[in-house]
């Protein structure tokens, strides 16, 4: 029997060795960094996570790109600056002579149109597709026409009318090209792209560096789903085989992912690593000090930090560990010069429910702006940020982080004033907090500490009763979307370097307006800013609009502007901490 047992164990061990031998390791890359959650997607049309941006913008290149320190737009695949018409509505981009795909072919204006068209398609379901609708002439109409057709095809199909659906499908497919020709993104010739905007957009050159505006190599068309010879699915969606982002994917003659950036994706092992190698066809690629870059996936940032301390990792662009306040202290006192604090363009705030008459059957006192102001004045943000969170964030009194967007100075905001807060509460009919229902504060587990401190402050200063509801992330998102709260935590990371990326969130009907705030005066100010003659008057109008939301109506209560810790080994140079956590690897150097 013992022999049989030994035999079994040996067999099992051999099986283990066999399975394990199927993986092999390449030599260490020139630069190694950690991405804790792996890449969610590399499809530029769908990318919305900052860690995905980091990979995408190193392997692709848009018309512009961001400066590695200031993050201002600089030259990308097109000559900079482009030709801009006097009314600031037409941009003519000329592609560089040496803009090349990793396959060696030249990048054309048509490649950009292809990428943009994919990104605005409803089937791509991209988070940033709204940027086309908002800014490019004809895009909103085209997308609405597509939405309607998709809705009609789905309902015809469901209603059991396949013949009608097919007829409508053909009719729609025939019209597709003519309709798209109305959109203001046109390849004038191989190297010239003309973009017509629906209105002036002072930050357009900043926008076009975003992944959603990246070009797409023609080979992707090989992987497009077709129905009855048309480039659409039966429901009218534009859909590509999602495997197209893999470097080793071969089907129907597809050559694998081709990109136009400084690097190309060479290998991507799910939840393990991705390896980038310099794109030999990129301009001056031979001058890159880091020829290979490895992205390691450590689900657990604690282990990632240990790997960094042990020297296996050169760079940690993310460092949210339970002891990050200690890291912040070490960095602030100069004891760890390799840990940097990046003040980023992001704000943590509380939403007040401005619309619902009742929440869980209780009358909602926050429809009254005086109550919202009172709760804003009753909070000591200094203590929250410096004592409770204590990880080096900046106290926020405005929605837009100050001193980060050039030419814009946000309003001063409200200071902590419990006396005035109590006065406002009694003016609103709740003297000493009497008559107020229990205040439901909705948050996720990661905010629990913060929300407990907030609750205690309000209880002490305003005499109200607070009921914390801590929910799991997805349930929280659903409850927030359905406005089942009086107060709910919110956070917003800027999409681009302009105050409107924050302020638009509170416009009437905006999909991210969780508080439900609606004020014609505010909407009107935003509209007037769009039409402002010059940058200074535009900034002044936007600051007036912001003053409405942080000083008068208070639909939100800004608490802090995030500061993100990152770690760069002392021997790595050329990676600069910045407000967008954007790290172009081509500038990195290793000097051991």
């Amino acid at each position, binding site marked *: 029997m013992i022999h049989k047992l030994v035999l079994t164990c040996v067999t099992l061990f051999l099986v*283990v060795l066999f399975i394990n031998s199927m993986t092999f390791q390449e030599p260490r890359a020139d630069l190694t960094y950690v991405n804790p959650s792996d890449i969610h997607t590399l499809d530029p049309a*769908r990318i919305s996570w900052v860690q995905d941006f980091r990979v995408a913008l190193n392997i692709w290149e848009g018309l512009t790109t961001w400066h590695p320190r200031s993050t201002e737009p600089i030259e990308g695949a097109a000559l900079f600056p482009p030709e801009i018409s006097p009314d600031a509505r037409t941009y003519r981009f000329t592609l560089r002579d040496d803009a090349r795909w990793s396959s060696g072919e030249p990048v054309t204006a048509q490649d950009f149109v292809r990428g943009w068209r994919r990104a605005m398609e*409803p089937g791509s379901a991209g988070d940033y597709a709204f940027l086309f609708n908002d800014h490019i002439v004809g895009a909103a109409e085209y997308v609405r026409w597509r939405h309607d057709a998709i809705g009609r095809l789905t309902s015809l199909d469901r209603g059991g009318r396949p013949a009608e659906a097919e007829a409508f499908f053909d009719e729609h497919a025939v019209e597709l090209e003519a309709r798209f020709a109305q959109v203001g993104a046109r390849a004038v010739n191989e190297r010239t792209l003309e973009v017509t905007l629906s209105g002036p957009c002072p930050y357009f050159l900043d926008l076009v560096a975003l992944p959603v505006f990246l070009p797409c190599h023609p080979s992707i068309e090989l992987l497009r789903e077709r129905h009855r010879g048309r480039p659409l699915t039966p429901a009218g969606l534009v859909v590509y085989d999602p495997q197209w982002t893999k470097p080793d994917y071969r089907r129907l003659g597809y050559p694998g992912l081709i990109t136009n950036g400084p690097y190309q994706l060479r290998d991507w092992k799910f939840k393990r690593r991705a390896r980038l190698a310099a794109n030999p066809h990129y301009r001056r690629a031979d001058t890159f000090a880091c020829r290979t870059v490895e992205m390691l996936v450590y*689900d657990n940032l604690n282990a*990632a930090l240990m790997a960094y301390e042990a020297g296996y990792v050169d760079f940690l662009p993310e460092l949210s560990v339970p002891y990050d306040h200690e890291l912040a202290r070490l960095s602030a006192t100069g004891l760890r010069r390799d840990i940097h604090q990046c003040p980023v363009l992001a704000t943590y705030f509380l939403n007040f429910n401005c619309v619902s008459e009742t929440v869980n059957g209780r009358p909602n006192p926050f429809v009254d702006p005086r109550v919202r102001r009172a709760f804003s004045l009753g909070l000591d943000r200094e203590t929250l940020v410096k004592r409770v969170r204590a990880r080096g964030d900046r106290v926020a009194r405005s929605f837009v982080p100050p001193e980060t967007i050039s030419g814009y100075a946000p309003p001063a905001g409200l200071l902590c004033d419990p006396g005035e807060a109590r006065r406002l509460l009694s003016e609103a009919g709740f003297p000493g907090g009497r008559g107020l229902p229990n205040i439901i504060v909705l948050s996720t587990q990661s905010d629990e500490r913060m929300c407990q401190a907030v609750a205690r402050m309000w209880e002490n200063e305003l005499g109200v009763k607070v009921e914390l509801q801590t929910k799991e992330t997805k349930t929280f998102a659903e409850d927030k979307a359905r406005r089942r709260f009086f107060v709910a935590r919110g956070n917003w990371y800027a999409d681009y370097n302009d105050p409107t990326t924050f302020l638009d969130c509170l416009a009437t009907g905006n999909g991210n307006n969780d508080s439900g705030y609606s004020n014609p005066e505010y909407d009107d100010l935003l509209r007037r800013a769009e039409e402002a003659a010059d940058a200074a008057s535009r900034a002044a109008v936007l600051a007036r609009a912001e003053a409405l939301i942080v000083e008068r109506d208070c639909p939100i209560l800004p608490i802090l502007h995030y500061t993100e810790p990152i770690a760069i080994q002392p021997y790595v140079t050329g990676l600069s901490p910045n407000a967008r956590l954007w790290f172009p690897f081509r500038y990195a150097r290793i000097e051991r």
Partner: protein
Amino acid sequence: MTGRLLRRLLLGIVTIAGVYTLTFVMVISVPGNPLQQSERNMPPEVEQALKARYRMDNNWIYFGQFLKGAVRLDFGPAFTYADWTCNQILMHSLPVSLVIGLLAILIAVGVGVPAGVLGAVYRNSWLDGAVLGVVLLGISLPTFVTGSVLLTVFAVYLRLLPVGGWGTLAHLPLPCVTLALPYAAYIARLTRMSMLDVLGSDFIRTAVAKGLPRRVVIGRHAMKVAFLPVVSFLGPATAQAMTGSFVVEKVFGVPGLGQHFVNAALNRDAGLILSTVLVFSSLLVVFNLVVDLLYAWLDPRMVDAL
């Protein structure tokens, strides 16, 4: 024998079907939309068209479609990681979990059995005390503690092994040993107890009286009987080690299946939840069956127990 085997297989399929149905009901009843992977809202037409595309517009159709795909081993797309299919995710992570689980069990047997035998043979000596002490520690310390301690000592201070990750043989020892410890402790205790039982029995006394050397008495005669409870423990233990290594995966950054099991649920990734549940439940059923077969092979008297 064949009849018994068929019956067990059939029971296994019924079990898996039950687990699938239960999971499905939970998946459709929790709040959250699997197609929406960020907090931004999706236009309703698009949501409807995408739901229709993945056949999620009708729960019962989705129930059937997913099952039909699963039978052909096609688990469909993953939603959170949109560039991968569930099959690819399983193919990347299942071998990792299998390797860690199997190696951990091998280590557990290799350490636990000799420790248990020594404890029994040198009963009440300092050696027995040491074994019992270590066993107590092994069972009571959670893996995230032992894992972190091992990681700090061997990877950060001594720099003998890499800090987490996956890909080379050097990545194996720490997670495997961490996962093995509680099993090793349990096996040591089991072996010690059953060995003590056996050592007191008549046939052992006879063997000693015959003048057989102690090594042979223990190694050949006593072990044969004392080992059987350990074998019956190994079935569920192996399946559990291979499927339940979430904590160890997390501590060491090992890309196994356990993390998807948890993250898919948090992300409401319906396809990935259902496929990991199906794979895990199938593994459990199959491993229990395999161990019972192994048991019968090791001890032919046990065929009846199948």
